[in-house]
């Protein structure tokens, strides 16, 4: 990309980060029954598991990659 022109590019955000932040702002501005339903769209979690000698170990649910020992 050439010189960034949008404020979010200049601050170091990618388009995906910008648009997901905007989507979160939209979901938080809703009235109640629609709001809880919409907020479910953005929750996510990961399953972390270690491999040893070709076999997968037990899976652990983590909600942040850093909690699984993966540096982001």
């Amino acid at each position: 990309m050439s010189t960034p022109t949008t404020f979010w590019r200049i601050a170091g955000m990618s388009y995906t980060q910008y648009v997901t932040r905007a989507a979160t702002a939209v979901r938080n501005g809703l009235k109640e029954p629609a709001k809880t339903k919409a907020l479910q769209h953005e929750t996510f979690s990961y399953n972390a598991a270690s491999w040893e000698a070709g076999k997968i170990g037990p899976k652990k649910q983590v909600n942040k990659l850093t909690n699984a020992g993966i540096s982001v």
Partner: protein
Amino acid sequence: MMQRALLRRFTPTLRRSFSTVEETAKAGMTLNFSLPHETIYSGANVNQVIVPGAAGEYGVTADHVPLVAQLKPGVLQILHEGTSDAEKYFVAGGFSITHANSTTDISCPEAVKVDDIDSAAVTSAFEQAKAAFSAAEAGSLAAAEAQIDMEVNKSMAAAVGVSLA
């Protein structure tokens, strides 16, 4: 000379008739409107779509020139055939692609019905974001995030008739 005069006299309708090809029954344009978690319209035949482009709002009808536009947080209006009231969605962003065959694909990360917007929640979120923006260092990530929140909430408030500054 004689033959040409005869030809003209006996075949006038053939030369001067309009096309007899049937007009295609589908008036209007085709709309595909989808979100990551839901497809709102797939192949729907609508009259007009008013798109909140980042460079400005524009309307798309049948035979519109092909166009790719990034969307800004704003209201997307869909006018169905036979109605004068538009169906309004507030979109958080995304892209709209209009093809040469009168099909428009709109893809957004989130779109909500304008009726579901809570003006009180939006006003307080705007004030919070405004405070965060003044407190943050200019050009920092926190300032950019506060600015996004401000712009989206201001736009949502405008969609329900509340003007914030």
